[in-house]
């Protein structure tokens, strides 16, 4: 890049956004769904000197860190996170505004053999509210007739995707499930719990996924796990998480007894779906309160570099009396940048290499 004319400056593509954590930072590549660990010193370089001549940055650090700065810039270009331009004014930051035309974006309905849900009515109500995604979670045996009737109601609704979580049953064979997926384009995920063996199959012909898990999912406590494999680096979650809760915002849950909640695992109920409309519940400010508990307001999470890619949990929290406490099923400590059971991965190795090059903190 030494041949760059003098009027060229470096900038990050605006879909690549640095986020500072306590111990290290990340660059979220929202377009390509990736993320890169960077030292906090690189975060500082980006936020202070992006869009300015490189010389200016080097001079600001009295030329004591020229080699490190060159290495950081090379890292940005090698990963296609940055580009050169002579017109930085033409490249505004991406707006972080989030909004949705759907009053409810997703819903979870829990069912046991004792549940008495009127699925047709619930799905009609969800459809009115614009709900795009529905998860139907069955803890106990369910008949094919019941599943078919739910899917038939979904077909007549504005729902765009349905996920079924059902127990392993010998009568519901894979050909039966294939037929279900083939006949219901909106059914794009089936999870079979309590299965004898685990497997995961993509069904591209049906645009669906079929997962068998040996885990026994028999009540609403099987949720709230915070895990790197659940991270999603995209603009929708990133912008939504700026001011909203990344799990509960615009969600509605119906538990096995028909209680309307922020999530079926939650304790607080806002009426029963048999005699209270979903619309009247979601318009209550008490119900919507959880929607605005963002990561920036949550203890520990607010210092975590993963805060805009992580799906929060407000039900299983460290301190039951504090709605702003950290999810209890998260084993990451942003102050040490360690997972409880961290495994060696190439990204963290690369991070350590970058970090050692800046062992002297870069300060202004």
């Amino acid at each position, binding site marked *: 890049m030494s041949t760059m004319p003098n009027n060229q400056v470096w900038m990050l593509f605006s*879909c690549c956004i640095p986020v500072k954590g306590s111990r290290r930072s990340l660059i979220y590549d929202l377009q390509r769904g990736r993320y890169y660990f960077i030292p906090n010193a690189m975060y500082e370089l980006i936020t202070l000197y992006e869009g300015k001549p490189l010389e200016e940055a080097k001079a600001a650090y009295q030329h004591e860190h020229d080699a490190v700065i060159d290495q950081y810039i090379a890292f940005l270009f090698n990963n296609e996170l940055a580009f050169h331009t002579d017109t930085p004014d033409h*490249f*505004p930051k991406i707006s972080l505004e989030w909004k949705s035309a*759907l009053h409810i974006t997703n819903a979870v309905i829990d069912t046991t053999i004792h549940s008495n849900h009127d699925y047709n009515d619930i799905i009609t109500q969800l459809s009115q509210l*614009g709900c795009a995604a529905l998860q139907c979670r069955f803890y106990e045996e369910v008949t094919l007739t019941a599943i078919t009737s739910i899917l038939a109601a979904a077909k007549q609704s504005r729902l765009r995707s349905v996920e079924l979580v059902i127990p392993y049953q010998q009568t519901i064979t894979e050909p039966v499930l294939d037929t279900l997926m083939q006949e219901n384009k909106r059914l794009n995920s089936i999870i079979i719990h309590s299965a004898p063996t685990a497997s995961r199959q993509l069904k591209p012909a049906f645009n669906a996924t079929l997962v068998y898990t040996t885990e026994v999912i028999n009540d609403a406590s099987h949720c709230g796990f915070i895990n790197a494999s659940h991270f999603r680096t995209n603009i929708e979650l990133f912008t939504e998480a700026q001011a909203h809760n990344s799990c509960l915002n615009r969600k509605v849950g119906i538990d096995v007894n028909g209680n309307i909640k922020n999530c079926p695992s939650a304790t607080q109920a806002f009426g029963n779906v048999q005699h209270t409309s979903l619309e009247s519940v979601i318009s209550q400010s008490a119900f919507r309160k959880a929607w605005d508990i963002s990561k920036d307001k949550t203890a520990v999470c607010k210092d975590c570099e993963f805060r805009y890619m992580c799906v929060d949990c407000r039900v299983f929290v460290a301190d039951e009396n504090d709605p702003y406490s950290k999810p209890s099923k998260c084993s990451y400590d942003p102050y040490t940048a360690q997972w409880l059971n961290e495994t060696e991965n190439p990204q963290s190795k690369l991070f350590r290499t970058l970090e050692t090059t800046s062992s002297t903190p870069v300060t202004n």
Partner: protein
Amino acid sequence: MIFIISQAEGEHSTVAVMDWLHYKNAHHYRINGLDAILRHTYLLGNGNETRIERTDNTDTILPSKTDTIWFRRWMSGKATMFSSLEIGGDANLINVYNFLRKENATIREYFLHNLKTNKTLGNPSKDALNKLEVLVAAAQAGMDIPRSIVTSSKQHLLEFRQSVPDIIVKSLCNPAMYSYEGSNYVSYTATFNEAQLAALPATFHPSLVQENIPKAYELRVFYLDGACYAMAIFSQSNNQTAVDFRRYDRATPNRNVPYKLPAELSAKIGRLMQLIDLNCGSIDIVRTPEGKYYFLEVNPVGQFGMVSFPCNYFLEEKIADWLIEKDQA
């Protein structure tokens, strides 16, 4: 009431606009082009008004004079063919197919003729723009355009190339699509090298050949009634997308980021859209490494979703707002 004329398949962007209309409690109704043809009966006026009725005898809902229309799309160009048709050879098959297409086109024209409103987003008579007319109009609007020639003569092409050494060839209308052994193919803009040029016969099918404009990056601009929403596409760092960004690299997609147009360029785009009588559409522009902007073409039916999402512009809501405002006016 707001009327949306669209097609049944692959219309996520239409649905996203309807979501906003629904959210804002705006009364709207969608009719797909294919339904207008296959599911309506046209009782021609004989001294009185023509009546259009649904074939399933449910309530017929058609736009009236005071309604607002969004002409999004009509339908894919396919005519309904009966696979068992025994018509004796390819030539007859082509004739029958073209005949059915024209029959459908006549109904389409008549359906659109019966829409009496003057509040329309999109222009039903402009969903297949003439690329050549538009290029000349862009030049009239003050934009730079690539030097272009349409010819069937090798000699004329060679003469053109003496002043324009680096050339590309592209289709005059929308790209052709083919299916072969389970895969889909579509025609793309391609460069033209010395050997290919030498191999040409003296005459060939008339082709649009243009100066290859060097790209720093490309711009895709969505124009909505005077406002421009621009996105820069960094297609140059990837060989697959360097000549035609539609050759998407799905593993490592091109960088698509919001772009602020110079005011002068926005004004020229506005002039062009007025000249070709469109109040919305997508405009393709190239920015050269020297900082010059070259107009390439206009897509009159939108493609706003591919700009709206990566740039977080909420164009779907802006379109809904436009329709609501006009409908209440």
